[in-house]
């Protein structure tokens, strides 16, 4: 059985607003090493905004995010990425013009340093670097079982596989913290099962800590260790799946809606 470690990510009193429209109000929660932490809530509950605050796409007006003891506000996505945070996107944000392999290779960009000159020559160091990183990307392709589509332009893949590539691109960064924004949205049962398998595998093969937004309650309850429930930008529940399931607020706000 896997062991949950200490707190790696601590979100304190985050508030975010877009020109007067409050997206998040005073949200706090923490994520522990090696756990799968789910964020659930009805549409427009501010789940995605929460992730965007964590990885620096949005700058919250109040509150702080502490990652591995380093507290930051107004950090750029790049800096957050350098701290080992990767994410996938709710409505696919793949690089449409590129092949599956190239999409995953972009995940290695952080590690590729050779400058214009060597690149232009495509010799020596540049070539060596390219090969090393390719080897790593290939391991991920193998891990996600998309060998057959390696050279296909992502645009041509069925939705389910695109989601996989999105995950692959994030994994290519070898993140210590992985943010998944509705990884199973719009998938059929079979695809969902696969995705669950991959998420769990990532969690214990690479020991990656995972924060996961998901709509499908069933899935959340199955795979997550602890759950945060948001509703209209406020936190209305936090705890182990079955605790959360039993809390009335949650039932009213969330399950009530879905049933």
């Amino acid at each position: 059985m896997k062991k949950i470690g200490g707190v790696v990510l601590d979100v304190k009193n985050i508030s975010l607003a877009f020109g007067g429209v409050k997206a998040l109000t005073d949200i706090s929660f923490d994520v522990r090493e090696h756990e799968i932490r789910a964020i659930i809530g009805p549409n427009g509950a501010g789940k995605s905004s929460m992730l965007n605050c964590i990885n620096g796409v949005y700058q919250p007006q109040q509150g702080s995010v502490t990652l591995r003891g380093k507290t930051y506000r107004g950090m750029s996505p790049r800096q957050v990425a350098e701290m080992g945070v990767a994410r996938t996107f709710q409505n696919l944000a793949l690089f449409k013009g590129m092949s599956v392999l190239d999409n995953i290779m972009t995940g290695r960009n952080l590690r590729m340093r050779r400058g214009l000159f060597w690149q232009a020559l495509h010799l020596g160091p540049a070539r060596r670097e390219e090969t090393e990183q390719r080897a790593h990307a290939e391991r991920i392709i193998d891990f996600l079982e998309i060998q057959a589509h390696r050279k296909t332009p992502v645009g041509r893949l069925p939705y389910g596989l695109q989601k996989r590539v999105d995950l692959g691109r994030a994994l290519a960064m070898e993140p210590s913290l992985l943010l998944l924004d509705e990884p199973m949205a719009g998938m059929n049962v079979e695809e969902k099962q696969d995705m669950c398998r991959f998420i769990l595998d990532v969690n214990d093969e690479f020991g990656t800590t995972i924060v996961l937004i998901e709509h499908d309650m069933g899935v959340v309850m199955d795979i997550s260790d602890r759950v945060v429930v948001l509703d209209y930008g406020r936190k209305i529940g936090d705890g182990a799946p079955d605790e959360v399931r039993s809390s009335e607020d949650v039932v009213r706000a969330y399950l009530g809606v879905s049933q």
Partner: protein
Amino acid sequence: MFYRENGQFKTSYAADSQILPIRQDRIGMALLLGVAFVVVPLLSSEYLLRAILIPFLILSLAALGLNVLVGYCGQISLGSGAFMAVGAYVAYNCQARVEGMPLIVALLAGGLGATVLGVAFGLPSLRIKGLYLAVATLAAQFFVDWACLRLKWVTNDSTSGSVGIAHLDVAGFSVESPAARYLLCLGFVVVFALATKNLVRGHIGRSWMAMRDMDVAAAVIGIRPMQAKLSAFAVSSFIIGVAGALWGFVHLGSWEPAAFGINRSFDLLFMVIIGGLGSISGAFFGAAFIVVLPLVLDKLPYWTGLPMDTATASHLALMIFGALIVFFLIKEPHGLARLWATAKEKLRLWPFPH
């Protein structure tokens, strides 16, 4: 149909990621280069070289540069004419002011000059997006037009404002003959095309395309928007600058600022659109198209027997360009290059349709 790929398996990443992984393609490319370097100079007439092939090559080079910015990095630019101008004038000043400055060095210096301007006008792209940026690049165009016209030292105080190149030689060999000029241009084009290809298949190229396709996602996976965009601006304007220098030195010989006006910028943009955004071959297709179409229209009355004065012909050309732009944007946003690629794909799968 002509592909026989069985047995062409790759045992290393180097082999797998080479530019032309299929043997038949490599053979084709070798033949093409052979013809370009040997057969053409030997057989083609002076008119063909001067009026068609040399402009074609130089414009291809410029389009190649613009494609890096527009096609690969998704940053629209309406100022490429200016970058060509800077290339040309910087190169000119190097020659005119520095004794015995070698031609190649002067041309490359032209490129560097353009790079400086390119980066300067690229800086806004960090804050400004899309349409706004397009207008910012127009600023470059107008400013440079003006500078070339009004600032005397730019034209080395030539009274008429027009400048000229006395004679060209590379390492003692004169490049006066059309064939020699052609080969010089061809050399540049081949080298830059290869270098660009290498860039776009490496991580820098991927960061450009990432910015183009989905800039937020790109930032999230750790790509620095500034680095990506500025490098694209730099590379792009360098190539365009060199092309500009070649245009002035090798094609025109002597020129006025008008040679690099805003219409040049538009032409280049059209080459890239018609040829194919985000592809190396696209630049060549586009350039070929822009160079050949007017000639065809000139010949049209002669062939068909219909009377058509030159004015009508040029208006017709305008309309056809316009129509084609719209057509391509609607039907095939990736231009001729994509059509070519699809055709190749069909040949590979033949007799199967897909």
